[in-house]
């Protein structure tokens, strides 16, 4: 379906009516509730969905599938051998390794079967190995882009070209809000990472932007220091009492003006000011971890203690999930290991291993995992051949879009399975390729959206997250 007008306004009565004056009052409330019913009734893109929300753990820079997930036990026999042309088939490479000999670099890390499922996991991921029976490893994700910027833009917005709406914005647009006091799409960027700062990629607000969708659907980026939400705190000297007096005055005059000029948009302004006021309470409550018991904090590991850490953000993500935030996206940088991969990867794995396993355990303990879809992915994978110096314990890897591993957990996805197979070099897909578009189609499906039907008219096209090329829900991984 196509929604030409934006009728997903955002408020209900709860909470604010008591704060100042009559608030929005019954009129607008009726209006907004009614709109919600109507939009649900019109929503022919809706399917029964298993997940209510998504926590997307985005590993910016592209982790090596060969050293974390995609076990290739026989590759050590090929150490320092040129990658056979029958495998590489003259495919496109980056400007960095163009024209250079492609020497195979097997992973130096040990893999062992884990859990009931016996899935092989790298020694770098002991905690995730402990929850492997909850994970679905997709080993054959592939993408069209070979450089970070377009590849990140593609996986986050469905297109390499800047200007399209991000996944979270689509969900916000398609599903409306689940809560009254917080944004429905939140972004948490790690303030630091362990794997070195030498070659770190930029993040762009377009990765959580609304593109052609109305900008209220864009992600709200939480800050690791200062106000968690920009401009959240009152200016110095504006006390709770003076704020309340001010908003009472503003609301009174706005309502008076509404009666005089008749424009219902004034109601929206009143409602949004009330929401802003509520956020001034709800956001600090959200980021205040003092009520979390020690055994829960421990799940996320030591790094949880540091503001801006990935682990802290995982815990915040759980708290947001509980409070009805629809789409929570964590960005963790530092995965672009062209040289010196073993040391840097060890650091990065340390950052994310216990924290993301802790998130799974925590959600599971609360009975929330089934309705929360967790996705862990980078923008592409890394090459089987070495970039830079090659010894058994020293190597780097270039960008590799043809196959890489991501995992999903919860949200109606089968646990303890691997999907798709790569060839013996983890260079080409041998079986069951999954394109980024298919991943997006699958995520939407789990949230109860038919990816072919959720559209928005822009530049002459009914735009979709999955674009104009064919894409499929990966039904084999659905529980």
């Amino acid at each position: 379906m196509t929604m030409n007008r934006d009728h997903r306004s955002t408020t209900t009565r709860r909470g604010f009516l008591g704060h100042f004056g009559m608030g929005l009052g019954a009129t607008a409330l009726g209006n907004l509730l009614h709109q919600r019913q109507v939009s649900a009734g019109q929503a022919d893109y809706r399917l029964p969905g298993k997940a209510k929300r998504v926590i997307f753990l985005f590993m910016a820079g592209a982790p090596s599938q060969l050293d974390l997930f995609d076990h290739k036990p026989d590759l050590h026999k090929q150490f320092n051998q040129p990658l056979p042309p029958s495998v590489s088939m003259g495919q496109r490479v980056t400007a960095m390794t163009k024209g250079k000999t492609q020497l195979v670099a097997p992973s130096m890390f040990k893999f062992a079967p884990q859990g009931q499922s016996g899935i092989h996991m790298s020694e770098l991921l002991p905690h995730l190995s402990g929850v492997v029976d909850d994970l679905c490893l997709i080993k054959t994700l592939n993408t069209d882009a070979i450089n970070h910027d377009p590849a990140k833009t593609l996986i986050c917005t469905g297109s390499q070209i800047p200007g399209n709406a991000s996944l979270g914005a689509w969900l916000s647009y398609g599903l409306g809000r689940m809560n009254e006091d917080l944004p429905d799409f939140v972004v948490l960027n790690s303030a630091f990472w362990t794997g070195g700062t030498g070659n770190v990629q930029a993040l762009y607000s377009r990765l959580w932007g609304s593109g052609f969708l109305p900008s209220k659907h864009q992600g709200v980026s939480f800050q690791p220091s200062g106000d968690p939400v920009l401009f959240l705190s009152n200016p110095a000297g504006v006390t709770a009492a003076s704020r309340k007096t001010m908003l009472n005055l503003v609301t009174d005059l706005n309502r008076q003006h509404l009666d005089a000029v008749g424009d219902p948009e004034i109601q929206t302004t009143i409602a949004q000011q009330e929401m802003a006021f509520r956020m001034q309470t709800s956001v600090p409550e959200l980021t205040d971890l003092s009520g979390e018991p020690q055994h829960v904090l421990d799940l996320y590991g030591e790094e949880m203690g540091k503001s801006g850490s990935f682990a802290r953000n995982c815990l915040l993500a759980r708290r947001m999930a509980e409070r009805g935030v629809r789409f929570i996206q964590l960005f963790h940088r530092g995965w672009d290991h062209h040289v010196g991969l073993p040391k840097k990867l060890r650091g990065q794995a340390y950052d994310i291993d216990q924290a993301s396993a802790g998130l799974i355990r925590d959600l599971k303990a609360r009975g929330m995992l089934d309705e929360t879809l967790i996705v862990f992915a980078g923008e592409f994978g890394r090459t089987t051949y070495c970039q830079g110096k090659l010894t058994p314990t020293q190597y780097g890897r270039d960008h590799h879009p043809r196959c890489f591993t991501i995992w999903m957990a919860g949200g109606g996805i089968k646990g303890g399975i691997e999907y798709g197979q790569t060839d013996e070099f983890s260079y080409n897909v041998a079986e069951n390729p999954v394109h980024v578009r298919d991943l997006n189609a699958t995520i939407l499906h789990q949230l109860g959206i038919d990816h072919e039907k959720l559209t928005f008219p822009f530049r002459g096209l009914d735009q979709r997250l999955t674009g104009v090329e064919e894409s499929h829900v990966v039904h084999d991984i659905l529980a």
Partner: protein
Amino acid sequence: MRPTTELLTAACLLLAGVPSLSAGDDTVSFNQDIRPILSNNCFHCHGPDPQDRKAGVRLDVPDEVDLETLVERITSDDPYSVMPPPESNKTLSAAQIETLKRWVEQGAGYEEHWAFIPPRAAEAPEVDEARFAKHPIDRFVYAKMKARGLSPSPIADKRTLIRRLTIDLTGLPPTSEQIETFLADPSPDAHERLVDRLLESPHFGEHVGRYWLDLVRFADTNGLHHDHYREMTPYRDWVIRSFNENLPFDEFITAQIAGDLYPSPTTDQLIASGFNRLHLIIDRGTALPEESFNRNVVDRVSSVGTAFLGLTLECAVCHDHKYDPITQRDFYQLYAFFNNFDGAPETGRRGTLDFKRGLQPPYLELPSDDQRRRRGELEQTLADLEQQLRGAKKRLQRAGKKQPPKSKPPAESSQPDGDGAEGVVAPAALKAAQAEVDALTQQINRVKAEYQTLLMEIPATLVMKEREEMRPAHILVRGNYDQPGEPVQRDTPGFLPPLREAGERTDRMDLARWLTDPQHPLTARVAVNRFWQQIFGVGLVKTSEDFGAQGTPPSHPALLDHLALRFVESGWDVKALLRSMVLSETYRQSSAAPRERFVDDPENRLLARGSRYRYDAEVIRDSVLAISGLLNPKLYGKSVKPPQPEGLWQIVAMPYSYPRVFQPDQGEKIYRRSVYSFWKRGLPPPQLTIFDAPTRESCIARRERTNTPLQALVLMNEQQYFLAAMNLADELIGRNDTNDAERIAEAYERVTAQLPDQSTQQRLSDALKQFRKLYADDIASAERMIGQHDRFAAALSWDDDRKVELASMTMLVHSLLNLDRAKTRE
């Protein structure tokens, strides 16, 4: 309070969407009624692109479909037969089916797409309502609204009008004195004289130019990978100056497309050619250069499509356009005009002076006379010094040779200088020669540093330049840069008028002449429509970026044509066009209306009232600065960095992005108009993007207008907005000759251009008393408020009453700045 049921009905009506804009009678118009249905539902498989065409049937041209079958298929119940087929996810509504059936009954007449045939002159309709009978715009508008059973709204009051006009034309609110002057002028041409004054304001160009900067994605960084700094601010200055000087719009277009190709281009024309350099640029060593080169050219061509033609040319990069008759060949023929760029496709080498200056050849330097002179001097000094250094080095070399083989190192010599003795050079001579070399080297380094500082200050801007030898162009198979297909020549799309070449080589100048030919069906229409959108909030063609089949048809086609023709006849006179629009009665209507009017026509497409909508981000910020007396009205120059919350760039930028850390400017720079704010594409100023300012990564012809809690937070808490409240409060309480009522009235007038009515005055007065009580009981909070900005350092030593007064008046002004009407065009 209105009863809930009424509101629910209202909501239902609201959801019904935009009113149908077609004429009231039964005649079906292909362009108005039929093409939009066919385009959206059928053209994908039965349109211009032969590759996806199903069953050999096409509906975009006459006589290619059996009409009986058409009706049968669209009305069929059989899922295997019905059109559009279920898997297309398209369905026709009952009303659409009815319209199509009527069209077939009436003979299935086709019309060429309205936007691809030249505008036609039409007599403005005769109108029986005297007020709307004079101005052609009013006659077209009135006829339409009357056909829909509506009548115009009354004229807005003079205070509303002067605020509306002043902001629409300059982006800044009127001062109290300007309001007084206007109110005191009872003459019938007061309105006209006000308009003429505003059109002559230097702030006109800043405001009108800003829309252009969105359209061409002007920014201060490269937008990809490291997102490094790029310097093109002279282009921005040129845009602003062009609007201020009312450069004819055809020249404005030509200079941008082909300014570098004039026989002897002026500086301005060269600067303008930088339009072709505004695309994103990726860093060297990332993507393959050939790929980046292609990406840049595609970006350049697409922006010509959006900015001048109102076409989505980029849809034809990989295949023929699905909806418009733009073939893939058409795209690459246009590509051929723009692929002969004489410069690198990637950013330059880091560490060079060019890199630090945000420059990539070809660029144009624009030194002032002083800078030019100083540069000459420094270059001369450097040349002299280097010559001296060469001499000194020779002397040093000679001194070294003449030195006795076993002499001690000169540093240890304690002998006095024995210069003069032929053939015997004491170590002291060596020392002196060395000292001379060192001194000169130091001096050269100092001069070089000064030279570098000077160059960093010299304005410069990227420009377009053509290679001598023509680079061949090809159709790229599926748009892939590394799969060239058939070669193509420079030419324009076949469905538009033919190109007339003037010289030996067909070039961008020919393309510019083609675009600005009076017979061109798109250029003038697209331009006047965007100016209309700037003045009335929504274009006559709502999709101002797309005049193709998938765009919305014009609400007032004859009016659009009339304006386009008048525009060309006037010599593409932008100020005359805008003047004509704002002198219409249509423009002068009050925006207050019964609620049904808002519900029936939420975007005011029928223009039966004045348009009411939230102002753009820049207008809101600039107005707040102006109202409070903080605004620094300086025109032109390099970008400035008003403060923003700390750490925003670091958390997203690459560690070696240049610049990586946002360092806010100091002093009066931070109060300049927002059009001068530094625009990092990776993270533009949040105060502005939260209010829907685009990132400037792609060409944007119209902005969203949302209303969100984050916007409320900006107005409530952003430091400059709050400082503005304090600044005005300080001014108000500093006057001893006024009372509360007068101060309240003045604050209200500054923010809204209105005087408060009695109940508002009373409500504000009560609030002021409440604030006074709060802060009298809580002096510490008043002091915290006052102490947060060094602008008010002196106020900290005031007596308590006065501190309370400042805090309370600040809260009152702050409240006014948060009113819906403060951010809204009334």
